């Protein structure tokens, strides 16, 4: 039976080559785009090393200091009290204006106030702003540094190809050690291995390489650094009570409500002394999840949860349109083409085939057709990913194909096939034998 169906499907496909081409082109390209989209989403929001626990992370990129100016308006009023005229003054305090300043935070502030929160499993502070220019053989190497604490290596899961991360004692003692990325190793030493115990000199200090990590194929800037160094080796003689150059990322306890954890962080900020800087009178933080910050970057709104919901609506709307359009296109094609085969259906029905049989046959044919398109699309996607990755068109992002990705694509394929085949097949299966046979094309 199955063999018959496949044979039939193949015959139908090879009968009208031009239509087959249109159909396969539509299916394969749509699937390619959908697969690329899944791969992109996987790369950006999936749980990939070194951010395997992305869904548990809350990022606090900066602190905002607000100054509210108030204006006091005295109003002098005369009233009669017991027949005697009295002067009465009232004061009205109105908000007159505000100014605010936002910056990354001071390390002491973070260490003293934001460690050991209830809903947080572990937190890390780091500064990835700095960079150093090194000139080697008439070319410039820009080393992006990331000054971190030792918690960094627990919150993020880097893959070490050599050596180890620095630990608590390294950080406490301000040890001049560094974990470097394989790309820096290539640029600086000209090789991607055997770099342990080599020295890199920046900021007049010799850093000993103790670990080598793979450069992550993600776009999150916090992780795309060439050189990770214990933050205690950074010198700062100028200190502000709030502002500095550090960012904090919290990893919540498993199964903790992220919104609740955000609330706890926000409340913690309120317990900080609000008046250490005379220019401001209010301290505020806006912790957000990775996806919220991502959405805020694209569509800015003060409230990042709103940014995210707007982004979600736009992406889903566009995606829906992008899927719906080719599906309707296919339905359209199938509806007009299926008329060709009314005589065939008439004969089958005359010999006793039920509506269900006809329906199954047509849907099966469509699934075969979409799977064929899917295979072509899959090859197209592999080529496209290869082009994207080798040309580095997406910056540091590396698209990948994994088994999940393959299953998603297969599912998309099947939904596509059933959707585009259902309506025409249903319509055809309803045709009466007589009408079907009346057609002269037998």
């Amino acid at each position: 039976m199955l063999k018959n169906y496949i044979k039939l499907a193949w015959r139908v496909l090879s009968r009208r080559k031009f239509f087959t081409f249109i159909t396969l082109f539509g299916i394969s390209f749509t699937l390619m785009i959908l697969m690329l989209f899944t791969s992109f989403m996987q790369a950006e929001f999936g749980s990939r090393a070194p951010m395997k626990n992305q869904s548990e992370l809350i990022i606090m990129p900066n602190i905002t200091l607000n100054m509210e100016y108030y204006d006091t308006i005295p109003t002098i009023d005369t009233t009669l009290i017991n027949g005697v005229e009295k002067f009465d003054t009232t004061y009205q305090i109105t908000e007159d204006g505000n100014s605010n300043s936002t910056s990354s935070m001071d390390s002491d502030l973070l260490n003293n106030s934001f460690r050991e929160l209830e809903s947080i499993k572990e937190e890390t502070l780091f500064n990835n702003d700095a960079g150093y220019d090194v000139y080697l053989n008439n070319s410039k190497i820009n080393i992006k540094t990331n000054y971190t604490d030792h918690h960094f290596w627990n919150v993020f899961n880097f893959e070490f190809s050599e050596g180890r991360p620095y630990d608590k004692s390294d950080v406490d003692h301000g040890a001049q050690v560094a974990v470097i990325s394989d790309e820096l190793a290539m640029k600086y030493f000209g090789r991607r291995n055997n770099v342990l115990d080599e020295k890199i000199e920046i900021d007049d200090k010799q850093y000993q390489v103790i670990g080598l990590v793979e450069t992550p194929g993600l776009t999150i800037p916090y992780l795309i650094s060439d050189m990770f160094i214990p933050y205690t080796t950074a010198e700062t003689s100028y200190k502000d009570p709030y502002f500095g150059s550090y960012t904090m990322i919290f990893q919540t306890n498993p199964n903790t409500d992220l919104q609740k954890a955000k609330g706890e962080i926000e409340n913690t900020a309120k317990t900080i002394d609000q008046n250490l800087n005379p220019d401001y009178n209010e301290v505020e933080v806006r912790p957000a999840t990775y996806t919220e910050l991502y959405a805020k970057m694209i569509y800015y709104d003060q409230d990042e949860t709103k940014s995210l919901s707007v982004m979600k609506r736009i992406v889903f709307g566009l995606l829906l349109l992008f899927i719906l359009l080719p599906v309707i296109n296919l339905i359209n094609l199938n509806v007009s083409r299926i008329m060709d085969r009314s005589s065939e259906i008439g004969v089958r029905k005359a010999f006793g085939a039920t509506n269900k049989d006809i329906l199954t046959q047509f849907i099966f044919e469509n699934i075969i057709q979409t799977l064929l398109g899917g295979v072509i699309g899959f090859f197209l996607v592999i080529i496209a990913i290869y082009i994207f990755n080798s040309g580095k068109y997406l910056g540091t992002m590396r698209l990948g194909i994994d088994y999940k990705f393959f299953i998603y694509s297969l599912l998309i394929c099947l939904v596509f096939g059933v959707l585009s085949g259902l309506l025409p097949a249903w319509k055809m299966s309803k045709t009466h034998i007589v009408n079907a046979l009346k057609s002269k094309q037998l």
Partner: protein
Amino acid sequence: MIKHIFKLIWNKRKSNALILIEIFLAFLVLFAVLSYVTYNFRMLTEPTGFDTKDKWLVNLESFRQKDSVDIINLRATLKSELSQMENVESLSFTGFSYPFSGSTSSTSQDKMGFEISTLIGRADIDYQKAMGLNITQGRWFTEEDLTATYPPVIVNEIFMEEYFPDKNMLDSIIIHRGEHRIVGVLDAYRYKGDFSENEPTAFYLEDVDSKRTSNIILNMTPGTTVVYEEKVSKLIRSITKADNFMISNLEKSRKENASDTWIPMIILMSMCGFLCINVALGLFGILWYNINKRKGEIGLRRAIGAHSSDIKKQFILEIIILALIGIVLGVFFAIQVPLLKLGPLEPINMYYAIAMSAMIILVLVTFCALQPSWQASKIHPATALHEE
């Protein structure tokens, strides 16, 4: 003729409904993508207000670590030593609102009785020359401004349009972060990049001992290479005695900044382009098939005297009218977005997008109908009628 075509469309309403939905959806996709693209292209054509060619930027972290006297000395030394370098044409110290810095400092006050919100820029008296800013009214900061009774402020044109429309405010005092005299107006300063919004911006003059201006803009002789950068780096290092500064090329930063917008835009446009090809091929297939099925009708019309061009006209008009119905339906929904201010974009972008989407669909549909209807018009009445 038109009435007759409407009748023909109505008679085949079932199969036409699907084509209609397809055109309608294609219109919506085009509308969404083109709104975004139009917005970006309109931003791209506006001037950013500054030059990036042969401009280098030095970020000095160490400035924050010194006291005021140190900074005055350091700045004076840096300025004189750097400007003596052969390839340095001019230089300027600026705050964090240098091009593509990614940081924002803004303020909002209603001291003048209405809300004024602006971005804040901080620069010295050389910034205009170093960055190639265009002054449209008044002048840039001068030496005398440092000791003026009212500290000076320079704003951009959009600031004027938004808060003091149709007034000449040059040399007037405004109360904004204290009393400031407006000494000049810039045409634009979109320092966040080629695709960024034009926002009201106010420049304040920074004194020589400021801790806020820890960035140097170097205007280099055209054609200066990275080899020379090492020399600059060594000089700065010998003066600041620190290594934690970075030199970057603003032209390169501009390209990197712009590619953040170009890449998603190109991806969206190619997806959209592919969808159009897909829809066009599909439509072509359907039309070709449908017209082939109507051979009898064509033969009959030819037999009673219709010219082959009449046949062609009929089929093309049929599909154009069908497309128009789809477009009208699409416009009805699309126009709600700017009318109800649902989207994040300015309405004008969406009106452009609506017009362009309609055009593209009409062209596409006509193009798809050409070959099948030409084929139909070539049918000989005898063969056509013979089949029936």
